[in-house]
């Protein structure tokens, strides 16, 4: 049956040709070399192991295909009846062992290099939430100086194919993590709810964010730029929609930004004792709603019943008794996707979003919620 062997060849060649037009861009084909010493070591190791595998595969398949072509019954080849050879068995056990030892050496070296934590210039706490990241810049005593959430900004219309998708579709956030280049940045990775994983391919680092556990990572970025990654541990509905964006800045630029953020933080703390007008609350509230609430309750407040209830016209958002509304937003509801936002937002933000929910769409509770009401509620319950 010589026909069969031609089919084999045709199949393989055809497959290769079919894939060729798609092999045009290098960043679609292989791991990035990245911008850190670690990522380059990892890349080199990856290529080394890859080529070893290619060589082994080629040799084994070449022998096999040579035999398939030349030792065909159709070509009149008579079967030899040899079997069992201890010598051969020993050879093909020992040779792979030697190859593996050859692989284990560089792999161990790179791993040891990666585990060289300590001696850091600064520390950032990375905390996973369903479905966004929070970054806190820690001082020497591991107290937070300031922090912020980093959420996907790709408009929902792009996701549902109603508008043209942007260049960084699904890989863009409102607040990127900013770090300086050429300094050793340590990350303490953890989670507030389920397990997430924090990964920036260009840095060559990935670690799970596990609730109740602190994992350590570090990096020294060598080139300024914007680096993008994604959550890589299934974390629920919007697992595909919590990207990671890191902006690496030249040292001086970073220091200036850091100083400015400290000032902003002082201003924010002051706002907690302020009173706002209804208009200010609505504007601020809408922004927060669109970041934290829309993925379940939808921009129009209709939700996705029965799993994600509607807020538009809901009793909880219109009844005169505000405490129930405060309770569910601040403390969440166990056994559902409703999170305890009291741990994610400050009193001013909570007041704004609650006020917004009570007055957006067809809702008109006719009251006003100030940061002080939230502080009172939160302290009253303790």
């Amino acid at each position, binding site marked *: *049956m010589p026909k*069969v062997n031609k089919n084999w060849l045709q199949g393989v060649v055809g*497959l290769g040709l*079919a894939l060729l037009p798609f092999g045009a861009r290098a*960043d*679609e084909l*292989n*791991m990035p070399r990245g911008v850190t010493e670690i990522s380059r070591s990892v890349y080199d190791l*990856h290529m080394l*192991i890859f080529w070893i*595998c290619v060589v082994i*595969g080629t040799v*084994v*398949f070449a022998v*096999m295909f040579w035999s*398939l072509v030349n*030792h*065909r*019954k*159709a070509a009149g*080849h008579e*079967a*030899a*009846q040899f*079997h069992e*050879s201890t010598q*051969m*068995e020993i050879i*093909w*056990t020992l040779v*792979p062992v030697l190859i*593996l030892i050859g692989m284990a050496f560089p*792999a161990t070296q790179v*791993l040891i290099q*990666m585990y060289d934590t300590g001696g850091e210039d600064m520390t950032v706490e990375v905390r996973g939430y*369903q479905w966004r990241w929070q970054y806190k810049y820690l001082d020497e005593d591991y107290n937070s100086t300031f922090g912020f959430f980093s959420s996907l900004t790709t408009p929902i219309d*792009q996701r549902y*194919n109603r508008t043209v998708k942007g260049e960084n*579709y*699904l*890989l863009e956030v409102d607040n990127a993590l900013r770090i300086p280049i050429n300094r050793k940045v340590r990350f303490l990775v953890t989670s507030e709810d*389920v*397990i997430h*994983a924090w990964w920036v391919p260009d840095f060559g680092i990935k*670690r799970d964010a*596990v*609730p*109740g556990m602190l994992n350590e990572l570090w990096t020294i970025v060598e080139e300024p730029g914007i680096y993008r*990654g*994604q*959550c*890589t*541990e*299934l*974390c*629920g509905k*919007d697992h*595909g929609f919590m990207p990671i964006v890191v902006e690496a800045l030249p040292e001086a630029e970073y220091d200036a930004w850091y100083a400015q953020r400290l000032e902003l933080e002082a201003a924010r703390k002051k706002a907690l004792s302020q009173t706002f007008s209804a208009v200010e609350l609505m504007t601020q509230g809408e922004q927060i709603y669109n970041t934290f609430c829309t993925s379940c309750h939808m921009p129009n407040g209709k939700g996705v019943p*029965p799993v994600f209830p509607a807020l538009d016209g809901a009793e909880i958002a219109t009844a005169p008794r505000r405490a129930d509304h405060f309770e569910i937003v601040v403390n969440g509801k166990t056994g559902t*996707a409703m999170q305890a936002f009291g741990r994610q937002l400050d009193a001013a933000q909570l007041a704004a979003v609650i006020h917004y929910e009570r007055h957006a769409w067809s809702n008109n509770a006719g009251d006003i919620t100030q940061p002080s009401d939230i502080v009172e509620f939160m302290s009253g319950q303790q």
Partner: protein
Amino acid sequence: MSEAVVEVHADHADHGPAKGLSRWLFTTNHKDIGTLYLWFSFLMLLIGGTMALIIRAELFQPGLQFVQPEFFNQMTTNHGLIMVFGAIMPAFVGLANWLLPMMLGAPDMALPRMNNLSFWILPFAFGLLISTLFMEAGGPNFGWTFYAPLSTEYAPETVTFFIFGVHMMGASSIMGSINIIATILNMRAPGMTLMRMPLFVWTWLITAYLLLAVMPVLAGAVTMMLFDIHFGTSFFNAAGGGDPVLFQHIFWFFGHPEVYIMILPAFGIVSQIIPTFSRKPLFGYDSMVYATASIAFLSFIVWAHHMFTVGMPIAGQLFFMYSTMLIAVPTGVKVFNWVSTMWRGSISFETPMLFSIAFVVLFTIGGLSGLMLAITPVDYQYHDTYFVVAHFHYVLVPGALFSIIAAVYYWLPKWCGKMYDESLGKLHFWLSFIGVNITFFPQHFSGLAGMPRRIPDYALQFADFNMVSSIGAYIFGFSQLLFLYLVIKTIRSGRQATDRVWESAHGLEWTLPSPAPYHTFTTPPKITEAEAHS
């Protein structure tokens, strides 16, 4: 030699199958139960495959077009669970039921009533699992690995159905494996020493011990989940003093042997088929047995390589990296043995052989990407990306599934006494071979380029390869309907098969008439060295 025995027995008409549905409900006959298992697993393959096609339809282009993310997660989860526990595992048990007694010269399985029970649990287990998809809260959506706390505190209410479903599947597997061990150790015909058993029997003996060792561990894991969810314990809840990572250790202590449960019988099948169509004995029978046992042993000490990114001390990382790399050695022994068996044979390319050759090539590719994944520092980049998806589909689809299909082509003439249509078989092979590679090869690239697994929508640079992959999936998926047509056509109108079926097939099953009578080897045959394994 045993033909005479069988013919005498064939006169006992009262021993034939009962009529109608009760034949299947109450049967204790290993051949009937094998048939039930095989049809059931094929049904599950179609259901799990439909889910895969829903996933690939959604991923055909970026954006959300057909399903919502919640439902997408239910599809990935149930696709995995159904393929692993519903399609691959029961198919191997079905083959074991049909073949072990015939290969060992035994009249039936050792525990026929339990055999019936272990099959009939399965439809209820999967009925329970699949019914959750139609409930208000939706089906399991936390991945087939169901990591806590996503599968406990944050799970849909239907998780309890899932837990009971898994318990039932586990009970079925434990009973099945006890039966297989009891049969192999007690029911061998005189002269059928352990080292004369066909390799399919050997691989199943070792697989059955793996099942017996790890299914209770899985049962323990889901029971702890049940307690966390309903009875206020905190095994996996950090806030209550538990540890979510503990779940992963328990799960993968089950999970890694589990993946070998799905591949060792495949090694056995291929080791039966390749010698037949190479017309040459298997190169190293003894070393194949020892390699299988080594792989089984190693499978217990490599589990944390699934968890390199979870945060372990460097000593742990190194241990699991080295032990994982070691698996390449016995696996290499197997591949080299198959190649040496073909070497200087007289090879012909009937459909079972084509699937077996594709198995050797594509399983080796999956094995080599597995070796890459073993290297911890590089695994950080591969972990939970499509590179992993490509890897395990290469070992499970053209690996486990191709071996099952090869086995069906190889033994179907013995089972139903009819020969399948060779040209249709070859067409099925080529469509499957091309489809599977178009589906899974590009996933290596999207993974390396950074596409995480289990996402319903993706960034634009992954678009090309996802489209190719989806096209391949539809080619592969629909070619399996051709397989269904071919099998039905063979059973209904295939031409009569000979008793030996293949000119150089070795083993006791080929000494029986085709189709194999309802009862075989009621008087055990006597096996001499000359007739032992191929």
